[in-house]
């Protein structure tokens, strides 16, 4: 059965404490974290959570100070508290700390946050394009759309393709691009998008990945007159609209907060050339 796809917003967020169920290297620098989070209210595709490894309380961790925004990959019904899965890449001190969290340890959680992906219109082909860590942001959308979606995943090499087996198990049409040619098409995932856009019929692009990739997706979609939405991955301190650190520049002037007006935006709204 196909679940209802989301429209406006996801569930109201909680400030909770997750307990690490498992936390493993998936491949290369990519990790897979499973958290048991009492009170977790569920989430909608494209939403994220702020994760803060280490107990906060009497003796808070102050370095590194800030929590890290992470896409919610998927959740599992479990006996007792819901379990939430996060795929992340170890890149710096924050994700390094997360990578060192062992089963039983606590992780502060604020989420789910942000406005989710809206469902495609009836009759539209859903083209999901994701690169690098952006892959984690589109899994739930791919799962809910199942056979209606074509999923295009790109990364530097096969080890960077997080969640690949999960995507393959969905039954969606799946195409892969790696820059080093270690899996699928040798080149950028945007080349696969260009091919897909050339096919006849209405379509809608759902993208998440590095800025350069998103910008190219927006250009390709615009050239075809195809709607394109993009989930941004800006740095942020809070995730719920008060630090104002995650501002994305808009073509119309001014800024939009990625945390609460996004992370999913109509790609036409974003001034890509001014997004760091």
């Amino acid at each position, binding site marked *: 059965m196909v679940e209802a796809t989301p429209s406006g917003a996801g569930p109201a967020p909680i400030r909770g404490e997750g307990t690490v169920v498992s936390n493993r290297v998936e491949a290369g620098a990519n990790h897979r974290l499973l958290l048991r989070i009492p009170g977790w209210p569920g989430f909608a595709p494209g939403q994220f959570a702020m994760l803060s490894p280490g107990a906060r309380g009497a*003796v808070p961790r102050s370095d590194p100070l800030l929590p890290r925004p992470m896409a919610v990959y998927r959740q599992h019904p479990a006996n007792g508290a819901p379990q939430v899965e996060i795929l992340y890449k170890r890149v710096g001190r924050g994700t390094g700390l997360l990578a060192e969290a062992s089963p039983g340890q606590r992780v502060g959680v604020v989420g789910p946050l942000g406005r989710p992906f809206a469902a495609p219109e009836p009759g539209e082909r859903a083209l999901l394009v994701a690169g690098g860590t952006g892959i984690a942001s589109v899994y739930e959308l791919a799962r809910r759309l199942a056979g209606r979606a074509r999923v295009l995943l790109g990364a530097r090499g096969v080890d960077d393709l997080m969640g690949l087996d999960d995507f393959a198990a969905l039954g969606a049409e799946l195409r892969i691009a790696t820059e080093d040619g270690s899996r699928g098409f040798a080149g950028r995932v945007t080349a696969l998008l260009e091919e897909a856009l050339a096919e006849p019929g209405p379509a809608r692009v759902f993208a998440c990945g590095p800025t350069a990739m998103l910008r190219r997706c927006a250009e390709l979609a615009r050239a075809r007159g195809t709607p394109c939405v993009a989930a941004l991955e800006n740095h942020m301190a809070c995730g719920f609209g008060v630090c104002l650190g995650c501002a994305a520049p808009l073509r119309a002037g001014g800024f939009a907060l990625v945390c609460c007006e996004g992370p999913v935006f109509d790609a036409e709204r974003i001034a890509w050339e001014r997004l760091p």
Partner: protein
Amino acid sequence: MSPVDTTVELGGLRLRNPVLTASGTFGYGSEFAPFLDLRRLGGFVAKSLTLEPRVGNPPPRIAEAPSGMLNAISLENVGVEAFVSEKLPALPEGVTIVGSVFETEIDRYAEVCKRLTGVPRVAALEINASCPHVESGGIEFGQDPRVLAQLVRAVRCATSLPLWIKLSPNVTSVAEMARVCEGEGADAVSLINSVQALEVDVETRRPVLANGLGGLSGPAIRPIALRMVWQAHRAVSIPVCGMGGIETPEDAVKFLLCGASAVQVGTSNYLDPAVSGRVAEGLEAWAERHGVARLADLVGALEPW
């Protein structure tokens, strides 16, 4: 009922407890509704308001620093009119709301103060004196005692509300600045604002922030803040509201001991949107454990060696 009297007097206001949240870290309050009952707090200081809506700096606007963060948002806000008509009505009754005012010229500061005076539910005004003053060549209002005196005089004339002046730490003598505020009729001083700072990306050889300079906040600045609160407390007889890197009830106790009558929780709100409520309740529990009957008794009770 707790045996501890948590109420404090701060610059013309009686607060149910001495824990507020700091301007710029707490939005307009309603952002915290999913996480925290604002009535657990002594009050909150809303995001600084300008006469007109203000758009902030280009990104990157924030960056992490050791035990802290840098920001250069440039006081993006909805403007005083939208605050009054849209933001205030969204807040529950029973919350003590302090308006924060920020402008680029003295008469505009005074105008924002006038617009907020008489607005139901605005209990006090805090003047953010850390804005660069164009007429003084970009130096902050709060960095020149003569300019600060002019500013405080003007806003004092513009409002009958309790008036708090938020001081910059980027000065040689915070005691002198506090005395200027007291002399011009301020009801309290709040300190410290963020510490001017610079961080560099060695790969790009650029500052980490698009603005270049930013304000450092978080636990990294807590000992600086404690020092300045203590100096200000010794210099003036008006109350001091202390802030800078508060994360725990014990941090709040330190500020009270150094002379703060109340405290503001700032950057920690980003990490944990419920932290201010825990600081407020933890402070009460701390006092009970330590046989302190009134939190006000801790104010300035720092013991010498």
